């Protein structure tokens, strides 16, 4: 099962990659880890005429804090996040996600940015990125632009990346001491796509009420979904069991899954609520809020 024929170009610098993209436009796809793109090509779901391999570009392989963000380069492998002491200590929601993506071998090659660019409706990173309110940096010959994750994730397998453009990095806001998050994924077995997933991120005010909330669900619609109604309900409220249940109900309401061999529509909608509730309880626990178990 080989993909259709294509040209392969190795880029040694971002400029080289951009030149290649500029000349081949819509026929070209950027190859980073390839852990989604290559299977898609083998199944003829994707058929690019040219692959531009960005993995040799050292300047795209980084994981660092800068100006209030955790910045992850387009060639940075998931494994780097999984073993990063910085991620483990400061970004619990990203740490949760980093050990649930695909399987341990695939994570040694797959990339976070690649997952966002693939934008599989059941992908894990889009969910976490929504809850974190991540931003992406897109570069073309005419310069950089920064795009919010909400605008980036257009539709199933479709992003805001235009012809001649590539993502160079994703940025996650650095949490302060009163901000925590968590990510949950229901999967039939390791390496399977999510049956359902949820990420939540909460910032508390000094008085213990909620200053800001990020709530997102995955595999429950044409793309990862922000549960805005739950975010509104959480903001300004005091954490309680009833509040968690009410936020979970909002996730059930907007979940729009299809039935498949992972479960029925009713089951998956129920799981949207269950996972949002679990993620919220863990998030509050990480914030030191007691009594919600």
């Amino acid at each position, binding site marked *: *099962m*080989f*993909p*259709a*024929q*294509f*040209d*392969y170009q*190795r880029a040694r610098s971002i400029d080289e990659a951009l030149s290649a993209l500029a000349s081949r436009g819509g026929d070209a796809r950027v*190859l980073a880890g*390839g*852990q989604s793109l*290559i*299977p898609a090509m*083998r*199944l003829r779901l994707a058929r690019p005429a040219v*692959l531009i*391999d960005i*993995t040799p570009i050292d300047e795209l392989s980084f994981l660092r804090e800068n100006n209030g963000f955790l910045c992850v380069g387009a060639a940075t492998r998931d494994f780097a996040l999984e*073993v990063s002491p910085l991620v483990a200590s400061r970004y619990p929601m990203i740490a949760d996600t980093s*050990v649930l993506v*695909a*399987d*341990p*071998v*695939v994570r*040694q*090659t797959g990339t976070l940015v690649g997952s966002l660019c693939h934008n599989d409706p059941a992908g894990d990173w889009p969910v976490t990125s929504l809850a974190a309110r991540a931003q992406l940096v897109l570069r073309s010959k005419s310069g950089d632009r920064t795009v919010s994750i909400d605008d980036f994730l257009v539709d199933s397998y479709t992003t805001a990346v235009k012809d001649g453009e590539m993502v160079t990095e994703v940025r996650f806001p650095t949490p302060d001491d009163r901000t925590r998050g968590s990510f949950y994924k229901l999967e039939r077995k*390791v*390496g399977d796509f999510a049956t359902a997933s949820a990420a939540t991120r909460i910032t508390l005010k000094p008085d213990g009420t909620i200053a800001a909330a990020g709530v997102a669900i995955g595999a429950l619609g044409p793309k990862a979904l922000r549960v805005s109604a739950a975010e509104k309900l959480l903001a300004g409220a005091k954490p309680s069991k009833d509040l968690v249940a009410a936020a979970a109900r909002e996730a059930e309401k907007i979940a729009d899954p299809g039935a498949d061999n992972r479960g029925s529509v009713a089951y998956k909608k129920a799981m949207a609520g269950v996972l949002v509730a679990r993620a919220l309880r863990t998030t509050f626990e990480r914030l030191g809020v007691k009594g919600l178990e």
Partner: protein
Amino acid sequence: MKINVTVNGTAYERDVEPRMLLAYFLRESLGLTGTHVGCDTSHCGCCVVLLDGDRAVKSCNMFAVQADGHAITTVEGLEQAGKLHPLQQAFWDQHGLQCGYCTPGMLMTCVAFLKHNPKPSEAEIREGIAGNLCRCTGYQNIVKAVQQAATADEMVAAS
């Protein structure tokens, strides 16, 4: 497209189509059939090889052209001077295989795993091999084999 790869210490120059997958390149172009193809969709882990010594990759999910300039280790490269690699010896001692189909991928995954985590707990071993399927479900003895290898003198010395 011309590529230069070092496989198990031997340098090769070959002309390959970009769409040639690494697993098939190793098996058909180089005749190294120790690397197995199982699911052919990156789920089962039979085709795992090492890239540059310490990264486990599913070779059915990587193009041979991507390996240009890199060093690949396959299961054939584990034995040194007639002596089994400590993991191979441990799989032998603990009967860590039944039909043997998953074994090359299991071994290569575990070589990389023990490099990153030389003293794993049982739970960490089970997590570490989660991307490799054994359809004989012989996981119990595979885990024992990895535990034995982790305490082997050569492995301890290497870590």
